[in-house]
């Protein structure tokens, strides 16, 4: 049975759709109304507020904290400045990816790592020999993501002690929301301007109330995971268990990926002291990855033709889909498309796909399986640059 998050009391009242799912043992709202389109619009056009408390969160403290995290993750944590956040992933000895998350440097000897899956055992296992103290704070820290072009205006109106003009992309700062101490980071999973607000469980409700109250003037909406899923595909963000799989959970080795194969090559910082998987990653970087994670854009005219042959207008799921389908080149399978969504922003049907590196160049014409009236057909799709949607205001000071 899932448990309520610290915000549940408020969220349950708002959830007119009664649509919940389980996320890491907690209740998470899929959507608050029967149609999630207004929530999607809030993320993209005003401000959407999402409860992300179910994330796994670990604090790492001690004189060796930076060195330890530089060893665990592919990122050189010793180079991460205080009050900065780094997106990263971590691998096994063979350079196969286990999970991804954000790493925040809260102090010289103090970090916070988020993860999609429980990571306590892995961290403790590797911590031997390092002077660090690990603390699983997953159930003690409540987190809200406030995403969208108006998110800064909303926070400015309710948060004290933070200069939002100087809080840059991937920055983090301490502030207060009324009586509640909070940490605000300029991060998120929508690819838009956005923040995450971290506080003790005890302060969750007043924090929630203050943000929603301030958001009233900015068309803020409380949002669920359906809307998030659409935005994260538009942003080109991958999801563990959907677009790639955690190495220890895979039965077949083919399922395991390296960071380079899932588009996380940019987080890998080589040329430093050895870290988990560094030798394998070094070698792969030289040889080049076998697979690449790319954006695919369905050829709409081709899709229309396909449906027209059945006397139908094109029809796609109203929500982002996580049904993996094969990708073809000249009749041969060259990969799979794993996440898809109709993008209301871009007016295009887009997918995230893993394809053979030799067919991963933007502009390459491929075909993706598409089922019409129980018939499995294929429709033209083109490899395109990720992110599909990348607004200027995401990074702007």
């Amino acid at each position, binding site marked *: 049975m899932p448990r309520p998050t610290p915000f549940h009391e408020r969220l349950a009242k708002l959830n007119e759709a009664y649509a919940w799912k389980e996320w890491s043992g907690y209740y998470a709202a899929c959507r608050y109304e029967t149609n999630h389109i207004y929530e999607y619009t809030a993320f993209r056009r005003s401000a959407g507020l999402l409860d992300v408390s179910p994330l796994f969160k670990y604090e790492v403290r001690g004189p060796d904290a930076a060195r330890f995290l530089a060893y665990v993750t592919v990122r050189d944590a010793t180079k991460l400045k205080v009050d900065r956040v780094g997106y990263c992933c971590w691998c096994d000895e063979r350079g196969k990816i286990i999970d991804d998350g954000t790493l925040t440097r809260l102090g010289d000897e103090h970090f916070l790592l988020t993860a999609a899956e429980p990571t306590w055992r892995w961290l403790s296992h590797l911590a031997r020999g390092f002077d660090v103290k690990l603390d699983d704070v997953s159930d003690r820290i409540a987190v809200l993501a406030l995403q969208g072009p108006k998110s800064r205006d909303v926070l400015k109106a309710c948060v004290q002690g933070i200069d939002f003009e100087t809080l840059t992309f991937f920055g983090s700062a301490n502030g207060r929301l009324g009586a509640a101490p909070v940490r605000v980071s300029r991060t998120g999973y929508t690819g838009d301007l956005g923040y995450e607000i971290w506080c003790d469980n005890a302060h969750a409700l007043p924090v929630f109330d203050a943000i929603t109250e301030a958001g009233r003037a900015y068309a803020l909406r409380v949002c669920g995971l359906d809307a998030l899923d659409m935005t994260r595909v538009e942003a080109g963000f991958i999801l563990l268990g959907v677009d790639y799989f955690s190495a220890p959970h895979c039965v077949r080795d083919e399922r395991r990926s390296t960071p380079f194969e899932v588009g996380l090559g940019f987080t890998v910082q080589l040329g430093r002291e050895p870290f988990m998987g560094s030798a394998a990653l070094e070698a792969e970087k030289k040889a080049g990855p076998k697979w690449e994670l790319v954006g695919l854009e369905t050829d709409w005219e081709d899709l229309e033709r396909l449906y027209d042959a059945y006397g139908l*207008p094109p029809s*796609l799921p109203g929500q982002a889909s996580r049904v993996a389908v094969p990708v073809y080149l000249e009749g041969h399978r060259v990969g799979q498309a794993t996440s898809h969504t109709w993008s209301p922003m871009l007016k295009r049907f887009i997918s995230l796909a893993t394809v053979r590196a030799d067919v991963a160049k933007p502009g390459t014409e491929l075909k993706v399986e598409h089922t019409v009236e129980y018939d499995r057909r294929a429709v033209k799709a083109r490899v395109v640059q990720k992110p599909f949607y990348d607004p200027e205001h995401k990074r702007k000071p």
Partner: protein
Amino acid sequence: MTRKYDAIIVGAGHNGLVCAAYLAKAGKKVLVLERRHLVGGAAVSEQIFPGFTFSSCSYVVSLLRPKIIRDLELTKHGLHILPLETTFNPYLDGTYLLRGVDAASTRREISKFSKRDAEVAPLFSQAMAELSRLIKPIIDSPAPDLGSLKPSNLFELLRMGRILKDAGDDWVAANLKMMTMSAADFLSEWFESEKLIAPMAASGIIGTFLGVRSPGTAYVLLHHYMGEIDGSFRAWGLPKGGTGSISNAIAASARALGVEIRTEAPVKHVLIKNGEAKGVVLENGDELHAAAVVSGADPHRTFLNLVGEKELEPDFVTQIKRFRMRGSSGKVNLALDRLPSFKCLPGAGLHLQGDITVAPGIDYLERAYDDAKYGDFSKKPFMNIVLPSVTDPDVAPPGKHVMSVFVQYAPYHLKEGPDAWPSKREAFGDAVCDVIEELAPGFKSSILHRHVLTPWDLEKTYGLTEGNIFHGELSVEQLAFLRPAAGWARYRTPVKKLWMCAAGTHPGGGIMGTPGALCASMMLSEGAA
């Protein structure tokens, strides 16, 4: 000597801009000349009152063709359409109908008035969507050249689409009925509750000088359903930043393709030598030359002002003069201090983020038409209201709102003559606000600013002859191969090298872009530019 262009387009309405962009995409050197200080024509966003952005004229988008959005990469150039999912109908007796939240709640809502209608409604929508899909080839391609056909043979046109080929007898019957019946009668064949029929029938009168009981209005209904042909991928909703953002996105795309756009450059007339267009002469006397001239203005302006009767055959002039413009709509744009609270459904909620139609009964609508028939504005008008700031916070200061009220009827030809409009403008605005106040008490005290547009204003400011919002009524006898004149429905004109690309051509008015796109493709296929 002036520079020579492949094409000069008169008027930067969205159709003129679409036409320009497609021509430039094919490598042509194109100049667009607009009389106003901004592009967009009837699709503009203006800050009439500081801090509040009004979609001055058109306010929702439904027909903009997805192919044009893709071809011109409009999303990249700033187009974003916000959802507008619900339809709210408040009635004067204190009841209301709220459709569109989801299928089940729509059914429950309609059941308040008729259990039978509640089950018919989805079947009706399906029938309309199917009908629109069959008509798609007609609206996506130039009108067939059937100039010799009489309006009664309009039926023939359907043969060009797939209607008669693919469809059974039921469809043919449905079509004939749509072509000939009134919106009220047609809908009464499907539904029994007036509470549902009245607001639905109202779409049949938008932009026409006809009543819900006038024959032919059923067809206009279909025009408004055409947005459905793309299934749920249609461009239906509120353009972020107002409808001007559509025009701005098209202009940005056109500029990126090399189009030159000049504003505050009114064209005085088309330069014609030996029956052939050579360029244009601006109000300031400048002469500009081009291989082709395209008019993005309405048919009256194009032929009676920019070309001039003396360059045209008398028969053609008569046809153009008979092409009915007679505007019948007005617009009231409001800056509000707070959201209205409706008596029948108080407070904020889903019903304020969709469209709000004030059409409380067939008699109400018909009486509104009666006022207009005898040269007066409706004392109790039909209204279509949206509150874009509910989903788009950028169009109003934090916590404040904009309200857009489309109003019918406001006949251009008042009994005192059109020039009496300026002296009646505020009385017209009052009539509109009085009805809203009756439905939402306290509304009037929330008004910070009121901007009233009468058909006279639509003509003077926005260049729409007689204030007709569609460059000519969308009645059956003014559509397809008859738009704007028999024999001249394929974007050509009797003046060589002069083309038409705006709403006065097939497939007609609304923010659609098709006239502009089809004109460009005809010009290119005939090597005209």
